[in-house]
């Protein structure tokens, strides 16, 4: 089993992720944020209808197109681009340090600690009927799987195939897919935790829940 405590400590060392903001297209850049340390906000509102902080405008063909901050965070670096300079598409403009939220930290820990069962092919997935029924009545963590169990149905091009599970025996701790949406090949479908480790993982999650301080 992966040592979740040390992962958590590791995250605590640098409790953020860095996001590089690049020019989405060509044009002349006009920075709206120009100080290192500026706090920025991501999109907000019930429907994310309010855009994030305006970072820059990229003027192309007389059209000043806004570049907004994708997440909350702080500007930590400006790349080597001068204000009002022409930039090519994809040119890095600045880096934002985004402090991890509780949810994000939990996701990271779980993705490392659990055995991830990945999509063998691109397509839409759903649980087989018995498992689905069990999940609906007793919740996700009631389902135990072992090597070779038929757990999922892959629906692709109007054909359905059952997908057997490969990996260690355990319970389905969390699932990452939505049966309405197509999953890319290689993307995680669900995470499995051996039964004897459920307690440990729970403890870590509880610790994050109570102890993690979200930074802005």
């Amino acid at each position: 089993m992966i040592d979740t405590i040390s992962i958590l400590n590791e995250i605590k060392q640098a409790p953020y992720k860095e996001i590089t903001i690049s020019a989405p297209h060509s044009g002349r850049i006009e920075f709206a944020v120009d100080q290192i340390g500026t706090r920025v906000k991501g999109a907000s509102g019930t429907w994310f209808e309010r855009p994030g902080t305006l970072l820059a405008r990229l003027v192309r063909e007389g059209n000043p197109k806004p570049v907004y901050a994708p997440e909350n965070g702080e500007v930590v670096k400006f790349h080597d681009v001068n204000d009002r300079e022409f930039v090519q598409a994809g040119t890095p403009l600045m880096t934002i340090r985004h402090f991890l939220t509780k949810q994000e930290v939990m996701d990271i820990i779980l993705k490392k600690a659990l055995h991830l069962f990945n999509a063998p092919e691109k397509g839409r997935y759903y649980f087989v009927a018995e498992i689905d029924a069990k999940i609906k009545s007793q919740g996700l963590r009631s389902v135990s799987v072992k090597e070779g169990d038929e757990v999922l149905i892959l629906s692709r091009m109007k054909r359905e195939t059952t997908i057997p599970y490969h990996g260690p025996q355990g319970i389905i701790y969390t699932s990452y897919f939505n049966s309405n949406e197509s999953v890319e090949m290689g993307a995680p479908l669900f995470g499995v935790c051996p039964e004897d480790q459920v307690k440990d993982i729970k403890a870590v999650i509880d610790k994050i829940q109570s102890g993690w301080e979200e930074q802005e």
Partner: protein
Amino acid sequence: MDKVRIVRHPQRVCLKDILENVYDNYTEIGGQGEYSIDPSMIIARAYITRNVGKKTYKQPVMVIGQEKGHGEEFRNGGSVKPWGNAKALEYMKVAETENIPIHSYIFTPGSYPVEDYPGAAQQIARNIYAMAGIKVPVVAVISEGGSGGAEAIGLADTRIMLSHGYYSVISPEGAAAIEGRSSASRKASGKLVENCARQLKITARDNLEMGYVDRIVQEPPLGARPDHFEFYRKLRQEVILATDEIILSIRGVKLFRAIALRKLNNPKIYVRWSLSTKSKERLVWRRYQKYRGLSRWAFEDSSTGFQRFKNFALETGWSIYSFLRYEFFGRHQRAITHLAEDVQGEVHALMDRVTHRFSSLFKKLPGVKKDREDVCQLTTLSTWEAGMSWNEHCRYVSPQANQDKTLTCPNSRKSNCLDLWAPDLFGDFAGVCSHCGHHFPMEYEWYLFNIFDSRSIREFNAPIEASNPLEFDGLTHKLDKAKKQTGHKSACMTFEAKIKGIQVVVAMLLARFRGGSVGAAEGEKFIRAAEQARRKHMPFLAYVHGTAGIRIQEGTNGLLQMPRCTLSVRRYLESGGLYLVVYDTNSYAGPLASFLGCSPYQFAIRSANIGFAGPGVIRETTGLDIPPNYHKSFQALSRGHIQGIWDRREIRNNLHHALMTMGGEFLYYR
């Protein structure tokens, strides 16, 4: 400002108090405290007993009104939800069936602006439309008359106002918020609110002077409270008198004279409150005339005496012509036509048989074949009439197309739309994103050129001019600017035009003129357009290029256009006209909640926003967070508020199609 405070005071008299004290007994319909479809609207069947001589009469009335409930939370401050107004309408119709008068009591700061079915605006429109033709006397008593909420039950034959009440196009706070929009602070200062309230002329005396209420009931100096029994006595007297008067004024002339003279001296005389069929018609006609005559001083008409005479002569001429053409001759002609059609059908069938036999013979002749081939032109150039090409109508070039720049489609994130070059977008695509179909706003001139047949537009009543009847600060200047900018004298342009040869009368609200807001001038022009359509027996099209609502700076002069215009639309529809409404960009508030929303055929252009109040107002008044697509036309269609959505590039075809399918041969007149 004192007035507003008095009216909103939790101790102010409310509808329940009035039911208890003005009427002799009552039964509340469809509500028990908070158990009601909408506790802010109450309905009651009440009666008034009158002792005349030795006889006692019970006179039933339908009482309808908003209930503020002395600040009870669930009453929502008298702000009625759409379904509350629907309930009111239902019982107005019951009153009509039962042939009893309606007493409505207005205690509302405004309607609750949600779009859930039946929709704030559409339901108010339905109410006003129904009241425009309801065949029982309606007496309205106004304590707090806020905007559309008041109009929903306020179209009455007699309007009585409480001396400390207010009647206004918008709450003074709302007006201040709009007026003070430019200032930095979001909350309007008390001074500005007071100033707005004074300028909007919202008091009972102001409204009496302007002619929008008929009488005032005096209240005690600090306003009526539940224990002011003297006030109830006065109010009771007034509503009885008002009802009597309405009835008397429409009874047969002889009766009126004889009784009215006596009655004026002796209020004890009993008047029966039910109406005969003839009287009902007179009642509705009188109501129409009453509102038709209101607010006529609140706009300017710069046409010369000669023009006016000419117009009058023309109108009379058209009336006579239409009478002869449609009423007199038309009826006979239709009979003849029907006969002719039958005969024609027979002849056709006969001829078909003959020619068929003949043509099969014909085909066998050598040399004839070649001709036939040429008719179909399988290998040679065919003739293609120029008129069939759509481009014929694309000669207008939008000024927006003359800029070398690109625009970003608002859906670009979702649909991956590329930026559009202005000359392509506005010159070729009619302002429609070529990737996702989003419609950018186009200026109204585009429609003039692309919907109507070329050179078929004849504007009329252009000299009627928007003015500043309340001398509201700054409005005159703003209007002058708008007039200069647009070259129009009001936000409503009325004209006759043809759509693929079909003659129509159009009233167009221009978004560029003060947001397409409707004041006394716009209302008057709209009414005259409806009258013209009726007189000339043409379909009537309201093309809403955009409207922000009633022009608030005109106060009740603007608000009154809601019932006024609706009455004229109803008159047009009842005489057999076809009334279509097309919403283009953003259409909100008063006009939608009355003369536009009452049309049975309302269509929206894709990307139009349609609703009662904008997102900001909804958030402020209800505290609800509404999704960004709340007012989109597709939502309006799903909620049943409109009847269809059109693509801008197709309006001309769709309008023509609609005119042909809904009107058909006898389109303009039954």
